[in-house]
């Protein structure tokens, strides 16, 4: 590049950055949102090259997958802080704009970013990450995101034309193994488990049926199978090369959280942080952007749980209070949720049969029909707050999908002294 265009690009970036920061500040002042998305949108609109520029000379790690992005990114950032401060997009803004905003507003060398599945190819191309962590892939927001095999092709193509040095991949997900092995990038394989198998039953390489066993999986047709593991999660213990082990004594509940912690520790290990050193730091994390947090509302101890697709519902039903602990379900179908609530029929709501259940959310009617056919007796309410009042005082789990979760969190927090 000759000197003049380079100077022009730098000037353009400088002006765009200033305007973007002002836009973000205005957005916060006028209470239109956290401002992170608008900051990034203004920046990328005025200076599309800024994402690459902001990533230059930084150690960027991307975390993607259908479920567990926020938790894993948060845990990985905690682990990496052993070495120094880390920039993250902890507000969950995980499209290109959110990523750009995080990179603009915090300038540490170490960067951990959770990235939307659909945005991953673009973000890989523009941020030149050293490490990419792939957690799992399952159906989610099919009207917006599209189908899983489509994603895998885009991911593989993006990785093939990138300078990514290494992948950290959940080897228990056959979809991810097919995608990762279709690239020349070296992989650290982690046995983090996979409870939701409905999207991984057919081999992505040949279309054969995948045979899942306790000790792994293989395709009966082409022989694709679980690669040898570097790290393996066994209940609450993470085994490293089957030689040393670390106990995961997490504050975050459930099998899915342990799987996320295993992936975070595997990634941290690639960054030079030994699992034994990082694990105690992960134990201290007790909520992730409000998920798993407890709020006291009108004499009730309410725990907020996020589940936005069938795999997520299955994971969350593992951690709800034992029967007959009451559950409020809140389901929306706004833009960030996907407009099609058909996925409710893939989620195992039958498991709620023996406890008090209240259905709410903008698509509470769809949920109510689903529960009716699942044989789950339930009440319906117009809001989470109203739903809580239909239940006895005591503790209660609220399971909500993306926008319903934000709405519930906002309205419940507004009603209590923080």
């Amino acid at each position, binding site marked *: 590049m000759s000197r003049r265009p380079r100077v022009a690009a730098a000037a353009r970036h400088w002006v765009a950055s200033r305007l973007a920061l002002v836009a973000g500040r205005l957005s916060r002042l006028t209470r239109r949102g956290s401002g992170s998305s608008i900051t990034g949108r203004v920046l990328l609109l005025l200076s599309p090259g800024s994402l690459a520029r902001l990533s230059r000379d930084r150690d960027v790690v991307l975390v993607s997958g259908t479920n567990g992005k926020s938790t894993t990114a948060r845990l990985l950032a905690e682990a990496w802080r052993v070495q120094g401060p880390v920039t993250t997009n902890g507000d969950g803004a995980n499209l290109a704009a959110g990523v750009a905003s995080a990179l603009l507003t915090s300038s540490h060398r170490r960067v951990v970013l959770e990235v939307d599945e659909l945005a991953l190819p673009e973000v890989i191309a523009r941020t030149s990450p050293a490490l990419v962590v792939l957690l799992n892939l399952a159906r989610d927001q099919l009207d917006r995101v599209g189908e899983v095999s489509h994603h895998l092709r885009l991911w593989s193509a993006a990785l093939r034309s990138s300078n990514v040095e290494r992948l950290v991949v959940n080897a228990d997900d056959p979809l991810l193994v097919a995608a990762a092995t279709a690239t020349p990038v070296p992989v650290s394989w982690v046995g983090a488990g996979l409870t939701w198998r409905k999207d991984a039953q057919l081999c992505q390489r040949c279309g054969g*049926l995948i045979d899942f066993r306790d000790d792994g999986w293989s395709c009966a047709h082409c022989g694709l199978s679980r690669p040898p593991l570097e790290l393996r999660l066994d209940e609450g213990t993470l085994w490293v090369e089957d030689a040393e082990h670390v106990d995961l004594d997490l504050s975050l509940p459930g099998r899915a959280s342990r799987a996320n912690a295993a992936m975070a520790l595997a990634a941290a290990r690639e960054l030079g942080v030994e699992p034994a050193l990082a694990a105690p730091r992960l134990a201290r994390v007790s909520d992730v952007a409000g998920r798993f947090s407890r709020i006291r509302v009108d004499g009730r101890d309410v725990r907020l749980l996020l589940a936005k697709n069938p795999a997520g519902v299955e994971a969350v039903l593992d951690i709800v209070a034992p029967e007959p602990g009451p559950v409020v379900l809140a389901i929306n179908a706004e833009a960030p949720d996907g407009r099609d609530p058909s996925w409710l029929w893939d989620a195992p709501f039958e498991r709620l049969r023996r406890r008090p259940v209240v259905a709410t959310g903008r698509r509470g009617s769809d949920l109510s029909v689903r529960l009716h056919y699942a044989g789950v007796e339930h009440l319906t309410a117009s809001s989470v707050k109203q739903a809580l009042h239909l239940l006895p005082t005591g503790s209660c789990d609220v399971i909500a999908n993306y926008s319903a979760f934000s709405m519930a969190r906002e309205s419940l927090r507004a009603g209590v002294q923080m």
Partner: protein
Amino acid sequence: MKPSRVRIAHLYPEALGTYGDGGNVDVLAARLRWRDVAAEVVTVHVGSPVPTTCDLIVIGGGEDEPQSVAAAELAASLPAALDAGAVVLAVCAGLQLLGHTYSTTSGQTVAGAGVLDLTTVAGRRRAIGEVLADPVDLELPRLTGFANHAGETRLGPAAHPLATVVSGPANHPGGKDEGAVQGKVVGTYLHGPVLARNPGLADHLLQLATGLDLEDLPDEEVEHLRQERLGHRPGPRLRWR
């Protein structure tokens, strides 16, 4: 007289079950049980032929590759099941699979089962959104569902449209046809799943399969959902960052 047991085949869920399609099977089975008719769900896995001993066959939607996995099996064994008298519900990719041919997003043309007089080509844009449609031949209330398909389907003379679209995507851009009916085969692009939102269509299929005069069910939850969907009142817009 009530049949002793109604057998419902759930075809190839691992390949054709992307959009809550299993829900249609649940709905059919539940509506039989609620009327004291025993229902047996037979799950047919990829690699097995379509059974000839089922009263109802439910085929769901899937992605390109899994869809192609099911295509050859369906073409080989579905006609015999139809000859044995089975009623078929085919949704989305299931509808495409039952036509003469369909083409994948990569441009490959694949032979279907040929039991519906229709052909499907890959469209340029995905048709996505809520659909309202009025049944054409069947005396049923307005249908509601959610469509999400890239294929453009055109009917031949032997297939009748299931419904005429009032709002939302149709079988192909610029058209008004929704789905297809030919003999005892009903195909639709509506999921949601379609039978959960349209109990009238569910009961029509059950009636066709059993010959029973089915009494009405108190579908309070469903009626509430239908009113909401038919009125198509999206709530106030959410502010989103």
